[in-house]
């Protein structure tokens, strides 16, 4: 599949025609589309925009020059805006693909003779089927969307090509000459989607504070249209096969077919597994499973042949009720594969609209060749990474008034050649702990030791040398346990059976009764969910 540039044909002729008229430039606007309620709406007044010119006449001349250029180059009278999609990279939105949906766009033009035009037609190059407000999934209909990414692979030296993502075109009647306009005001309303429906609504919701805008000349607009940021990762390089960015359910209106990737979320694209550990292994612990508690999820990307092309995921530290310090790992079996692992670590940082990540160190990238296992060390030295708040001995386990949100680890594995889905080890994979103080690995019941630790550059554990290769105690009780949300951490020292009274019948009936035991804690022995929210 190859991409072709938009409107390559006839451009040479058109540019000759246009050069006789004037030369257009792109303009970054000083105003942004900012939040108004949930959808974002703030008028953009071109007639007052200093970046377009010092005087009204200069500003209107700039608009008219851009309009005439589009007539000359594309035989369409229009203005093209560039939008820097600037959404929070959480939930299903990632740094490499994020989006908003457009409810309405209106360009109001007042001419010097008092006549007024209200232009409500607009278009972008992508759509999605979405439900609005509190409507259900069955009411979905198509809306134009804007996709983008954080940062840019290409450094072209042009702020318009590098910073901005998607284009928004507004047809302008040919009889309108902006030189005769006195007021040109743009209104953009983002769609208020029902994000409770998950994707695609969750992906296209409007969550952040502002989206930067630019008025684009034809060259910059065509560059962004071909780059398809947020849709493909490498659109800046037409010589390469396009790599899908992972946006869900994009309807591309481009002529050429866009690549696509399917996603399976473990346990879902927005939910998390919770895993708790007892770190005194092989000795018994207090069974509160809060020595380290980690939330994590994994998403597997498949091509249209159902082969795995990519695995991505994230993890968050929830509790650390331990004197020991640990490394937390996630191990995936793949039989054999070559590829690249990209990893980043973030500490939470409060900001106006919630919590975002402040990166710790830099993103690391490493290759793997003929690997049968991928052993990711998500968190190294948990005691240093996740210290107790002031006045508390441990982190989020004593009944202190202080709770802290833990660091977040993000990984992305891309395979040079797709691997068989069947070769991937089954969910929930192998989340395991390495206790630095004792040199023991602690896995879920049934998992084996991480045999390739030293090959991956990690410390050798003493499990094999001491014969500690299984992970249930003599009574059949685990040292690591999978838990489901809304499980909340137990208060320090209370065993699971006491803090969750239905846990015992759940286990004793082999899980055939009280399956939702974690929904009914003894509220005096678990941390309150209304005061402690670990996810961010």
């Amino acid at each position, binding site marked *: 599949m190859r991409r072709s540039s938009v409107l390559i044909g006839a451009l040479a002729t058109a540019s000759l025609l246009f050069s006789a008229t004037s030369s257009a430039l792109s303009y970054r606007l000083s105003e942004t589309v900012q939040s108004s309620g949930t959808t974002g709406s703030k008028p953009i007044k071109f007639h007052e925009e200093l970046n377009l010119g010092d005087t009204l006449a200069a500003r209107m001349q700039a608009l008219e020059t851009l309009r005439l250029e589009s007539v000359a180059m594309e035989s369409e009278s229009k203005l093209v805006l560039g939008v820097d999609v600037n959404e929070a990279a959480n939930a299903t939105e990632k740094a490499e693909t994020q989006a908003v949906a457009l409810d309405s766009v209106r360009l109001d033009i007042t001419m010097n003779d008092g006549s007024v035009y209200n232009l409500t037609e607009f278009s972008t190059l992508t759509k999605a089927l979405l439900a609005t407000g509190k409507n259900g999934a069955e009411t979905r209909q198509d809306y134009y969307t804007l996709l983008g990414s954080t940062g840019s692979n290409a450094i072209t030296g042009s702020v318009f090509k590098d910073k901005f993502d998607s284009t928004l075109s507004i047809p302008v009647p040919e009889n309108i000459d902006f030189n005769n306009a006195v007021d040109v005001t743009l209104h953009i309303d983002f769609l208020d989607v029902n994000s409770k429906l998950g994707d695609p609504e969750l992906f296209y919701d409007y969550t952040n504070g502002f989206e930067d805008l630019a008025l684009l000349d034809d060259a910059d607009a065509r560059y962004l249209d071909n780059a398809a940021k947020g849709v493909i990762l490498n659109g800046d390089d037409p010589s390469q096969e396009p790599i899908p960015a992972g946006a869900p359910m994009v309807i591309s209106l481009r002529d050429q077919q866009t690549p696509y990737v399917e996603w399976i979320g473990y346990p879902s694209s927005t*939910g998390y*597994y919770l895993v708790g550990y007892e770190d005194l292994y092989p000795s018994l612990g207090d069974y509160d499973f809060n020595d380290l508690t980690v939330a994590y999820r994994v998403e597997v990307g498949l091509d249209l042949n159902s082969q795995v092309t990519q695995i991505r995921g994230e993890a968050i530290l929830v509790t650390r009720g331990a004197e020991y310090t640990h490394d937390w790992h996630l191990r995936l079996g793949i039989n054999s594969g070559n590829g690249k692992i990209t990893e980043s670590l973030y500490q939470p940082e409060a900001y106006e609209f919630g919590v975002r990540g402040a990166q710790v160190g830099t993103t690391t990238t490493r290759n793997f060749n003929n690997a049968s296992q991928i052993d990711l060390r998500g968190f190294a030295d948990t005691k240093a990474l996740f210290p107790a708040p002031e006045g508390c001995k441990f982190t989020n386990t004593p009944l202190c008034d202080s709770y802290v949100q833990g660091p977040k680890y993000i990984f992305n594995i891309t395979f040079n050649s797709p691997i068989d889905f069947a070769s991937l080890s089954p969910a*929930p994979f192998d989340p395991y702990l390495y206790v630095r103080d004792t040199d023991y690995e602690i896995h879920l019941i049934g998992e084996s030791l991480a045999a390739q630790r030293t090959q991956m550059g990690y410390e050798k554990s003493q499990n094999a040398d001491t014969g500690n290769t299984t992970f249930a105690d003599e009574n059949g009780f685990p040292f690591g346990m*999978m838990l489901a949300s809304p499980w909340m951490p137990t208060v320090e020292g209370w065993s699971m059976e006491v803090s969750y009274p239905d846990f015992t019948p759940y286990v004793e009936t082999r899980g055939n009764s009280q399956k939702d035991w974690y929904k009914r804690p003894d509220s005096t022995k678990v941390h309150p969910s209304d005061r402690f929210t670990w996810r961010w």
Partner: protein
Amino acid sequence: MKRLLVVLLSSFLLACGGGGGGVETTTYVASDPAPTTDTSTDTSTDTSPTTIDVPEDFDFSNFHTVSVDFTVPGGLVGQIDYKIAGEWDGQVQDLYIGRGYANQQRTVDINVPTTIDSVRIEYMAFDKNSGTAQVSIDEVSI
């Protein structure tokens, strides 16, 4: 059946935490010396032993893997996207997002909490030529 005996902590043994000098035996749980800053809970009222009979090979996972078989409805036209979603923890959880064609048969393995007994499959089709959108939703027991 194996049997686990856990003796609850008395108040002076509170706040065991993880490693770091704990005293352990195979029959009851002891702890670090009681810390001075985090002992706000009161465990002194219940020090009786409790027991759990642990079934052989019980995996404690609270999740299970389920195969979902489905056929994309034949009446849909154009680009057809679909997703499988479950609901737990008070929110819709997207398990699988895919793209296919009318009458396509698919099987997808999902890994969900054992409390979930059904999932929804939502189909979304859009025909670029006519600008027509179609939506179809199935509820599937698992």
